[in-house]
């Protein structure tokens, strides 16, 4: 089937619900309305109000109750309407979802997939465009995934629903309907914790994911670069091996993400490269991210999110050293 990312996610949820009765969906406006982005469209009609639930407007209990369900044999997929509002339930994720396994020496498991839209570029109101992947990755204990294509979205979702851990599934709103892709009708998994080498080259490595993949690809094509482009797909745990293998080959690396630069995912990636491959580099590690402050109002977002020019200038600087 040829589908966009929203349909791919919808299809993955549909297949997982058909496969396992333990899978239940809950969140704000996900039932009759099908979710504000329509990611769960039609699923309540198909599986009933007992499995696809419109909850009261309260993120902490959506996430906390999901943890309880997960520890009691279900495999909940809570939807948080926008990542900014996941902070209302952050305590449940940080204090409990991230730790339940370790603090009980795996006696208790929290198999759930927390879905939420992230990233900007679509002119939303405040709090609707955040990129919080570093926040959740930093906790440890939470698997953090960001698909960049419909194929990966479906495969990663199905994989997440076959795991026994809490997965934070971050969906870039800008990519929901950006393009369609031919994907298998049936179930398939995309490995979690494994980056995708989407382009191969020799002169530099560009590590990216999510909304920035298309910006990076545009620059690579326009400048006719011979570059390895790695789409991380999973932020935590990092696919360190793929990053190091590529960096050792090219000797130059640029990391590009939409999340703010300061204390962002790029810092973790850069530190690992510096620790393990610094002598194989022939230029300083470079990073491009949004500016180091919270996401602005939509009238300013184009000045904030990295654009092709910013990526291109970073590439020039990297190649000239």
């Amino acid at each position, binding site marked *: 089937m040829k589908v966009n990312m929203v349909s791919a996610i919808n299809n993955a949820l549909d297949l997982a619900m058909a496969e396992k009765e333990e899978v239940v969906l809950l969140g704000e406006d996900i039932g009759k309305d099908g979710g504000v982005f329509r990611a769960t469209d039609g699923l309540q009609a198909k599986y009933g109000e007992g499995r696809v639930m*419109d909850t009261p407007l309260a993120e902490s209990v959506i996430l906390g109750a999901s943890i309880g369900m997960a520890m009691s044999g279900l495999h909940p997929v809570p939807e948080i309407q926008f990542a*900014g509002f996941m902070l209302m339930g952050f305590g449940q994720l940080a204090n409990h979802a991230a730790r339940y396994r370790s603090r009980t020496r795996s006696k208790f498991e929290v198999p759930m997939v927390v879905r939420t839209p992230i990233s900007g570029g679509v002119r939303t109101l405040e709090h609707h465009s955040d990129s919080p992947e570093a926040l959740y990755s930093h906790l440890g204990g939470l698997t953090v995934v960001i698909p960049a294509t419909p194929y990966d979205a479906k495969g990663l979702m199905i994989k997440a629903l076959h795991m026994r851990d809490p997965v934070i599934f971050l969906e870039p709103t800008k990519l929901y309907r950006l393009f369609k892709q031919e994907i298998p009708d049936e179930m398939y998994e995309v490995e979690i914790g494994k980056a995708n080498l989407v382009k191969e080259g020799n002169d530099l490595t560009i590590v990216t994911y999510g909304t920035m993949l298309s910006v990076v690809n545009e620059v690579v094509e326009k400048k006719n670069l011979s570059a390895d482009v790695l789409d991380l797909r999973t932020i935590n745990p990092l696919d360190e091996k793929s990053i190091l293998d590529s960096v050792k080959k090219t000797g130059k690396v640029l990391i590009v993400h939409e999340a703010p630069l*300061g204390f962002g995912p790029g810092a973790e990636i850069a530190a690992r490269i510096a620790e393990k491959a610094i002598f194989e580099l022939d230029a300083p590690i470079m990073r491009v991210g949004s500016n180091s402050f919270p996401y602005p*109002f939509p009238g300013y977002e184009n*000045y904030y999110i990295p654009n092709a020019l910013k990526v291109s200038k970073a590439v020039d600087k990297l190649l000239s050293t």
Partner: protein
Amino acid sequence: MILPIWYGAFLIKRVFQGAVDNIQILDENGDIDASLFPSGLDDKKILEMYRYMSFARALDAKCLSLQRQGRAVTYAPLIGEEATQVGSAMAMRAGDLFVPNFRQHAVYLVRGLPLEIMFLYWRGFEEGAAIPKEVGGFPYIVPVSSQMPHAAGIAFAQKYNKKDVAVLAYVGDGGTSEGDFYEALNFAGVFKLPMVAIIENNQWAISVPRSKQSAAETLAQKGFAAGIRCVQVDGNDVIAVYKVISEAIANAKDGPTLIECVTYRMSMHTTADDPTKYRDPAEVEIWKARDPIDRVRKYLSKKALWSLELEKAMGEEQLKIIDEAVAKAEAFKPDPKSMFENVYGYMPQVLQDELDDSVANNFWQG
């Protein structure tokens, strides 16, 4: 063993009993219950309320059309909720403060926010959240209910400074499900804060109806658990709203009140929403008959205080003000530097470097 019949009566004592009143003064036909007519209100003020409600509806229509033309970002219409907003805002005394969510455009209007500032918000600029001090209000808040704890703190500060100031805090029916809502009420109850919490119950939280938001018969009764006064009012009756809020403000120095205004979201949740997906249009028709503006017009017409000519002149005058404000807002040119200069009260070198880098490389032109 046979227990004496009084056994239970001795050991079981009823320790709490509560009831919630619903108040209406002006009905759908424009008739008034004179026995409840609030002191401090007269026809002149009711006329003013009518003008504000009509103004708010015209403003709403403008924002909607701007959004449809790509001249505004996502917008949350207020149509249907004018009485709740105007009645409560007009009950405020000069120094009272308010904390809105994202739908209280008419409260800003009554409190004199220059409309170009409101338009700047809905055009997507932080400058639209820079509410002048004299308005006595805080900026729009988007994360549902997260403004309620602020309101408690603002009320705390008034009490601390021994000021007779009431703090009106607005929240939706959906918002009453959030932990922040309960925590704020409880805090305000414990410290007997001068807070007036107003639930603008418009029956819907996007696609979720009031009945699925809470199993409680009223949202007002949530005040009982916090030990604070609570009352329900016809939120489409501007006179009743005015009365109930005025009383709560007068009582604020002794502690908080929770007021549920029962109103209706006549339109979409926001411009990004399509209510035909989840709402029976017949329900909207029922509420049209309860329109908050129509009933005031009926009241004023019966008293020969209103006419078609006045209506026409008012409409033209208000549109002119709105258009001027839109023109001002559209003349605004954002300066990306302002993003960097307002992150901290000081400029860290690392942030200055990011700014310099953006300027030197022309990133904003990209």
